[in-house]
């Protein structure tokens, strides 16, 4: 039987579906008897979901000034030594 310490070590591979069958069965057997690890797993998954949600950026049109600076930089690449200003 694996311990809580072992289970914590397997969390990422478990969530990635990367555990082989014996390890996955041992992981699930521990979860079945350990409410503390079930709680930890749920909060660990919530951590990943919260990070993803917090960092999600709505689609945004690029600032026109930036677009023009990039296009100017492209033109400047054929003229060594010049740098486009934003």
């Amino acid at each position, binding site marked *: 039987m694996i311990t*809580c310490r072992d289970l914590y070590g397997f969390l990422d591979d478990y969530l990635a579906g990367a555990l082989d069958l014996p390890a996955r069965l041992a992981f699930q057997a521990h979860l079945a008897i350990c409410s503390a690890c079930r709680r*930890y797993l749920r909060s660990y998954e919530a951590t990943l979901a919260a990070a993803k*949600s*917090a960092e999600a950026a709505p689609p945004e049109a690029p600032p026109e000034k930036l677009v023009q600076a990039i296009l100017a930089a492209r033109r400047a690449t054929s003229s060594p030594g010049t740098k486009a200003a934003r």
Partner: protein
Amino acid sequence: MFASPAPEAELLAALRAGDDHAFETLVRTHSGRMLSVCRRILRNDEEAKDAVQEAFVSAFRAIRSFEGTCQLATWLHRIAVNACLMRLRSRKRRPEESIDDLLPTFKDNGHAAVEPRDWSPSALQLVETRETRDFVRDCIDRLPEIYRTVLLLRDIEELDTAEAATVLGVTEGVVKVRLHRARHALRKLLSERFEVRA
């Protein structure tokens, strides 16, 4: 010429031919998303804009050698990530901080030393608010740089382990260990608020 999004192959051919309209289409289509990526990694608007510009310049130079084995968006995303990492490396480094205090601890018998609470329902509800999203981002930023970066690359930018290892110049094993520690540490930081409200 490219008023509507051009099929990728057609756009790529035009880019390789040096078509000005094609380059403008490329920039207008992808720079907004690339700016979001650079803002996430650099946390500085001006630096993010500079990184986007640098990324496009790199892309323009490399467009003829782009083999089309992935989508242009994916290719540009990787270039933008690289531009950001170059900038992070050039920043004055802070002494590396330990995150051991944020990692789980165990008793001698291997059981968790602290009884965890399940705050997932409150977290997922609260993260809908702007204040909570700001709090989560602040917690990510409290991670030491090597952990923050790997968390962003793997969990937010969705690079796989091999890709993250390549851009960071470390082994895949190092990426896995850092990601593991970063996730546990972030969980601990989030617990400070979410446990109270659970």
